[in-house]
């Protein structure tokens, strides 16, 4: 055995313990890579590490932002809406005119006309008569079809949709429960809402924000403009 430098017995014992601790550490580090971790140990370790490491303010702020983004994404997945935490990139419309005129050329080019009409704030105006100056590219993994991009106004669909978010709406009058649709109300213009019960003569429109009331609209041709399939959020959520 090596002749340890420390002279006293207790120092020698201490040195010996440290040697073994080092052996344990290097061997355990390798073992951890090879051994399937035990769930009971992982439960204990997660609690230990969480208790030992108080997160920094920066880490907390990061977790806040990520939690908001994840919350919106989870909600979107539930309602069939993909959430993109960036502002959309628009391009000048190669064909000028109203939506009714440009919708087909845009669809053929894999784009969606973007309208300045804010949904939930456009009382009295008709979607198809809106002028269109810019187009947005439709993501490749979405099925081809006729889409329109609209800007959200108001807080009734928080936390999924924020005011000034842009939504991509697949044009069509089909409604399915729990989908998010753009519907036209005679008094308020276009609104974006979650579909509740669908009756033979009416459709229930729900807000995600509990501060806003539920409404009913007549189930008729033109009531539902389309279904929201994607939303861009310039707030990074």
């Amino acid at each position: 055995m090596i002749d340890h430098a420390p002279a006293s017995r207790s120092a020698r014992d201490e040195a010996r313990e440290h040697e073994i601790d080092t052996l344990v550490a290097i061997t355990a580090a390798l073992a951890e890579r090879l051994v399937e971790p035990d769930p009971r140990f992982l439960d204990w370790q997660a609690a230990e590490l969480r208790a030992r490491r108080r997160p920094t303010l920066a880490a907390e702020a990061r977790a806040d932002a990520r939690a908001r983004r994840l919350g919106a994404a989870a909600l979107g997945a539930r309602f069939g809406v993909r959430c993109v935490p960036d502002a959309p990139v628009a391009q000048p419309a190669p064909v000028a005119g109203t939506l009714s005129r440009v919708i087909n050329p845009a669809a053929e080019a894999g784009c969606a006309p973007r309208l300045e009409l804010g949904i939930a704030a456009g009382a009295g105006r008709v979607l198809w008569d809106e002028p269109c100056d810019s187009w947005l590219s439709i993501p490749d993994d979405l099925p081809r079809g006729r889409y329109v991009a609209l800007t959200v106004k108001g807080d009734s669909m928080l936390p999924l949709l924020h005011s000034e978010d842009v939504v991509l709406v697949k044009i069509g009058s089909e409604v399915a429960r729990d989908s998010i649709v753009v519907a036209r109300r005679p008094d308020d213009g276009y609104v974006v809402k979650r579909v509740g019960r669908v009756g033979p003569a009416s459709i229930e429109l729900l807000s995600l924000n509990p501060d806003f009331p539920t409404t009913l609209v007549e189930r008729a041709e033109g009531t539902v403009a389309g279904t929201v399939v994607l939303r861009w959020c310039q707030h990074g959520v």
Partner: protein
Amino acid sequence: MSAARRPGGERHLAAARALGDAALLDAMRQGDSTALREFLLRFEPLLEHHAHRLGASGGERDDLVGETLEDAALALVAPNAPTPRSIPAYLVAALRNRLLNARRGARGRAIARVREPLAREAALADEGICSESTLRASAGPGWEPPRPSRPVAALAAALLDDLSDDERVLLVWVSHHVPYREIAQWLGLGYAAVGKRVERLRARLRARADLHLATLGDADRLALETLFTRGAHHGARFPLHGPLPSRAARVPSAAAVAEGPPPERIDD
């Protein structure tokens, strides 16, 4: 506005912190963003630790941990998603799988084949001429302990080979300072029995290490001694068989470092 600054925010955060894992998952499924936040903060240190143990470092580790947590959170809150028996185990398994997939993808890239030997050479040169504290200081706050050298890895492998699966698991627990009462509960043993098992295990490691060291040449023994003399700041020294030159004589000069390693001694 941060969650803590919202009205009643601190109370909500404290309530989320107090939840068990299963209750936290339930709250996440109800759409509680405070619970989601707590999920991220609770399991991030665990995944960082395991990512590090699996060899991921720096930016790769941050990306790996962040993506694993986010994907897992979305998968766990999806409608009809099954509830795992242990969320930490689920997350660690997801992390391992993600890392393995990433490495499989990276393995074929020629650029890695070119860069890796260069990076290794550079690291060896650094380690040869700089102390660990110098390396740590020059790397800044992102410093991470170096990967084990070849002799240390060989020693660890030799020690591990000698252990049964149960002993390996116990070793991992001991290295993380899991209290004996926890281990006793998990294994269904008494507190004293756990203490005895751990003592036997430590004694075996030491005996096996001595056997291993007896088979090594000077260069490898020196490398191992360096490992253990780093621990000497805390009082540790390493048992080496046979006489070695004094420490002063063994520290290479800068010129010797520049010339390269000395030829290995051939034992009779």
